[in-house]
């Protein structure tokens, strides 16, 4: 769909901007800026997406929503595999993560992968935050274009 292209190009510009800036200031890990932009976006978009939905039964129900309707709305596909230890850790596996499919298939350019998953980690964290779940979200890329998002729910 055409709007996907526009968003991909914006995401590309976000990545470039954040990296260019961090070179100037010699800051390391300015992927946190990218993550925060994702967080803001996720926090707001979940409101629009869940406007007409009844409250989620529990944490697992919420995660299933993230894997299905949320992921479809954002990435035009669902999460391929969800695992949990039922103690607040969830692993969401996307076998063809949209921002990695263009990079490579396999281990080439693996060092670039973190830049392309940071925004989405924030997006997930922001969405969960507005649903009342505080979490840490990281991503693991072993072989592109597959990606595993690790969600660690923070219980206060």
């Amino acid at each position, binding site marked *: 769909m055409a*709007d996907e292209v*526009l968003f991909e*190009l*914006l995401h590309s*510009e976000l990545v470039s901007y954040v990296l260019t800036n961090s070179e100037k200031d010699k800051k390391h890990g300015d992927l946190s800026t990218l993550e925060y932009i994702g967080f803001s*976006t996720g926090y707001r978009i979940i409101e629009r997406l869940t406007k007409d939905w009844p409250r989620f039964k529990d944490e697992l129900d919420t995660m299933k929503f993230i894997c299905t309707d949320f992921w479809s709305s*954002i990435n035009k596909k669902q999460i391929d595999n969800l695992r949990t230890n039922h103690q607040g850790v969830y692993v969401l596996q996307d076998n063809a993560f949209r921002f990695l499919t263009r990079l490579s298939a396999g281990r080439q350019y693996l060092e670039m992968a973190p830049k392309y998953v940071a925004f989405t980690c924030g997006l997930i964290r922001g969405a969960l935050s507005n649903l009342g779940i505080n979490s840490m979200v990281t991503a693991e890329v072993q072989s592109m274009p597959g990606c595993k998002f690790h969600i660690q729910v923070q219980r206060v």
Partner: protein
Amino acid sequence: QNSELFTLTYGALVSQLLKDYENVDDVNKQLERMGYNIGIRLIEDFLARTSSGRCYDFRDTADKIQMGFRLFLGVTPSITNWSPAGDEFSLHFETNPLTEFVELPDHCLNLKYANVLTGVIRGACEMVQMEVTSWFVQDQLKGDNVTELRIKFIKRLEDAIPAGED
């Protein structure tokens, strides 16, 4: 429905730029530059998707830019206010797709919030050998009734002649 993802991400980006740059004018320039980078690639997708050929004239260009807005942002602005020379026109937006959820705080009144669009148009047109410039004449974010984007044709860009040839 999913231009919301673009719109909300764009909003978060603008907020970030306002934190990074002291000068609002630098934010405006950065937005335009990013738009340019997007435009030079977006045009390829547009051409492939619409099987568009060369524009006959600037009115043709106006129609195509209008089509671009419909394709990529799901809005159809109206084309109005042609200059007598036919080298300038306006796009009228009932609602600016980028600013649907946005309010400008008082210290940002010089912010050209949707400036990315001027860059996109400049970049896209440059790739098809046209130099154009665009600017917002009216802005709903600043209290106007409509958002009006004016586009002006500057000149045709010829392919650069390599050094050493006539």
